[in-house]
């Protein structure tokens, strides 16, 4: 994998995927920062990992399963009390369908 130089277009594409607004002079700042971080992680590509299984859990444990039973009670009011805007049990957002 050749070293990556992060361009303005790549910053904007990743910002879109990340649901972030990055504009103006910030685009170049992020491009420089991301290029440096990717250069730091670049040395990974010199390591021979053929035949090595990826490790996603540090104790190699699989996730615990529990019985398929309802254990939680309805706490909608409690959790909506901290929401920015609600109405009649619904979360309010700007109109999506015209």
């Amino acid at each position, binding site marked *: *994998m050749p070293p990556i130089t992060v361009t303005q277009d*790549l*910053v904007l594409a*990743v*910002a879109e*995927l*990340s*649901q*972030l*607004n*990055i504009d103006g002079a910030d685009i170049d700042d*992020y491009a420089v*920062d*991301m290029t*440096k*971080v*990717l250069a*730091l*992680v*670049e*040395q*990974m*590509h010199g*390591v021979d*990992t053929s035949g*090595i*299984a*990826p*490790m*996603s*859990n*540090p*104790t190699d*444990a699989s*996730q*615990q399963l*529990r019985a398929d039973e309802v254990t939680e009670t309805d*706490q909608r009011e*409690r*959790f909506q*009390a*901290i*929401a*920015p*805007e609600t109405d009649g049990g619904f*979360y309010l*957002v*700007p*109109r*999506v369908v015209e």
Partner: protein
Amino acid sequence: MSELHDKTISQLLLDLDNKAFSSVELTGHYLDRIERLDPAINSYITVLREPALARAAAMDVARQKGIHPPLAGIPIAHKDIICTQGVRTSAGSRMLDNFIAPYNATLVEQLNDAGVVTLGKTNMDEFAMGSSNENSYYGPVRNPWRADRVPGGSSGGSAASLAAGLCAATTGTDTGGSIRQPAAFCGITGLKPTYGRVSRWGVIAYASSLDQAGPMARTAEDAAHLLQAMAGFDHRDSTSINQPVPDYLAQINGSIKGLKIGICTEYFDEGLDDDIRTAVMAAAKTLESMGAILSEVSLPNTQHAIPAYYVIAPAECSSNLARYDGVRFGYRCADPESIEDLYKRSRSEGFGREVKSRIMVGTFALSAGYYEAYYRKAQQIRRLISADFSQVFDQVDYILGPTTPSTAFKLGEKVDDQVAMYLQDIYTIAVNLAGLPAISIPAGQSQGLPIGLQLIGRHLDEGGLLKVAHNFQQASDWHAQRPNDGQ
């Protein structure tokens, strides 16, 4: 006799039993110190004066009745990434500045059941991303040892509050060194338990396969007091380890005679400060004089730990932080024009620069065309790093080295150099990738600043680590040194 605020939990429990003072008096003493001294340190985001005094009074009543939980009336603080019901839990971020946690984290419940008094919530790098506590929405924390120095991060407020005598112990979280590095910088004891030993339920997620909460305390014995309450299986955390919790306080008093301690050659590279090298080797000799058997060991993939971490952690961060959308809780931008504007502006205004940078790197590493070369590759390297440790633990019981390459650096010194900041975690990060327990304890000073010694153990051997640390603290007094606050 040490000052009230410098006493260990073990001493405080004896004094409370002997009625030398009440928990209300002790709690009031800490609260007064916080009010007087913390404006210059900034270690607390939220102080819970009235609830703490009420809780202390209740614990005094319980103690008088003679039936009380083990840590009744001991005043502690929680890192502000740990959910505390009815209390703001900000994670050091504008995003959660208005977030009142609707429930307690499991570890908070456990410590409450053990009788602690919660003084407040401590400052931290935003969403635990940082090594200097300069990435907080609530401003940087200053190191009590010297005001122009950082306390380390991300649990910088926890470490600084303890070093300044503003609590008896604290909780922290450690994803790449965030308990151990600030513990080293502030001259306290910090334990990162085995991944899954302490429940992550109610601990705001940064990188879920690395995050682990643990105790920060004055001594290994005090850390054992806290871990005893915090450790254990939790059915609400699907990665929690279902193994019995040993009696850590009983374990720490064992002898270290005959224990094999490996000195990791890769941790004594050219980047290490000379005073730290000397102090850590002197500490190793102390352990040898107490009967430990020293040898050299090698972890050849150490150099790949930081690259692998800075793919895995940002990738998991980008996924975990996708939940902050301005809809259900947390920051919402003013007058959103569309749903997309709501998401993007809430996130752009709510997150700080470093958090956005890690979300961007992580999103890139997980995106189509790059996933195999970055995320999968990093997870393969993670296995190589883990295998290094397994091989070494066939030869020795513990691995010894420095916690950090330098002592506390100056505020502002590394803020413009992200990669230099990342390299701070060079000796701590591999431990998280392998899910191992590790402890940092004070082992010297350089120009008046504390030096940290790191010990790494096998999975679930927290008791053994605490034993080695406790033995060292019986033979040294670095852990008893305090910064001079003139108060």
